[in-house]
């Protein structure tokens, strides 16, 4: 069954047509590579799918239902979470606080309950233990109480991914998760994305390194000037349309 879909998505920024009528459907579980030259509209599409940007035209569907803003499930849980091309974290907060911010059971009325003291301490301790485990698994060697702004760029990228995973969202949208990483962190990130797929998630990622896309993706969507140039198995990356879009 199609978990995430969009129909006729169009978005314009001033004179630039960022997206011009995009129709897509994604099934779960899968890893989908979103590729294309700079300015192709990849990040705009991710922002619209994540509910962070409203399209001028078109609709986004999750589980067959039209959604606006940040989509949520019937139980209030988050369905779509995303990471950013540049590292976006709360830099002057502890690493643990960043992950707790994404933690599912810290959201909604639980925030109010925590102020009133209704929320029991064991629950809070459970969240902290869960986030510490996540941190140790994804960004080993980083202290939970270190400031996010003090850790290395590679560790910040992985921490962003850990925050995203802590939301327990079904769909993860990752904007250039490998950009600027050394081989060790690249390998770790690729393994993590494969693990997420094995856990049944739908992972859509933007990536310029076509070798890495081939290593991670079940399928590929190639965008160029706001339109879909090609889509299908990673083999489409070798097609003349894609090579022309990248190399001119």
């Amino acid at each position, binding site marked *: 069954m199609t978990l995430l879909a969009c129909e006729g998505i169009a978005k314009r920024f001033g004179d630039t047509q960022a997206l011009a009528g995009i129709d897509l459907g994604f099934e779960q579980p899968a890893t989908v590579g979103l590729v294309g030259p700079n300015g192709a509209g990849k990040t705009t599409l991710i922002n619209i799918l994540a509910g962070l940007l409203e399209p001028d035209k078109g609709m986004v569907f999750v589980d067959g239902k039209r959604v606006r803003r940040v989509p949520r499930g019937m139980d209030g849980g988050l369905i779509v979470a995303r*990471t950013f091309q540049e590292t*976006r*974290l*709360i830099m002057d907060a502890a690493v643990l606080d960043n992950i707790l911010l994404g933690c599912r059971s*810290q959201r909604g009325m639980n*925030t109010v309950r925590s102020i009133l003291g209704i929320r029991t301490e064991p629950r809070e301790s459970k969240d902290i233990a869960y986030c510490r485990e996540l941190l140790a698994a994804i960004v080993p060697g980083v202290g939970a109480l270190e400031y996010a702004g003090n850790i290395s760029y590679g560790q910040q990228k992985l921490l962003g991914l850990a925050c995203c995973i802590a939301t327990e969202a079904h769909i993860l949208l990752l904007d250039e998760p490998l950009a600027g990483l050394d081989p060790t962190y690249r390998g770790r990130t690729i393994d993590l994305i494969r693990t997420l797929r094995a856990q049944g998630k739908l992972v859509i990622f933007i990536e310029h390194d076509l070798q890495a896309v081939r290593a991670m993706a079940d399928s590929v969507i190639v965008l160029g000037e706001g339109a879909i140039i090609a889509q299908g198995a990673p083999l489409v990356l070798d097609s003349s349309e894609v090579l022309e879009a990248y190399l001119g």
Partner: protein
Amino acid sequence: MDYFIHVLVLAAINGMLALSLALLAGHAGLISLAHASFFGFGAYGAALIALGVRQPDLAFTALACVVSAAALSLFVSIPCTRLSGDYLVIATLGFQTIITSLFNNMRSVTNGPQGVAGIPLPRLFGAHITEPWQFLVVAMMTTSGLYLIVTRILNTAAGRLLHALRADETFTRSLGRDTFGTKVAIFAFAAGVAALAGVIYAHYITFIDPGTFSASESIVLLSMVIAGGAGSVTGPLVGALVLTLVPEALRFVGVPGPTTAAIRQMLYGLLLVAVMLARPSGIHSSWQRRQ
């Protein structure tokens, strides 16, 4: 002695205003220049209730004004959820200007620029509040309670959320946090506290006029927050105390003639500039660093 108590009552009321504005501007990053309008709303609300009901109960008046001010804050917070930084400041200043204009021009309700005089002294749970020291107890207890509530908020998941909202709203939203609801709630809380301060002020001074709740008062409140240290809980209280005491102390500066008031204002302004140059993170933060 009465004068000393009087200054402390004003400092405690300013402390409530500064602490609530600090939660909004310092911790959530929502800089508002409309705080004095909610202060005035509470004061005028209390005056109207008091003049309508002889010997009003302070708890009832406070509850009515706090709830009404929180509801009124929706007119600012909902349109302003899309704004941040300079744009938010300008939008809240616009709201403040509208409310000040209403205080001045709704003569049948507010008595216009002449203000409302003879506001009756209140009762609190049956006990009459008539003496300055009794007002001091009420104001200090309310400020202390607010201090505990704000500390509690900042030490829980809510504090983490406010911090994230200030640091990076898009990142916070991307993790599924309700930034819209958080902004609306924190505006309502701050407006409610400002109204509560207004209720106590109106009953204590027994006379109110629009000049007390103008945009310049909002700027003074923001100065208290920034000068004291916007990022802490104690800082705004220190800022409120210092910026309440300094103008009073300047009364004793021996400047002759009609320029006295202008010179006092200039000294006050110079002091603010000096504090910002010497202690950019606020008076209280520098004390913390030394410790």
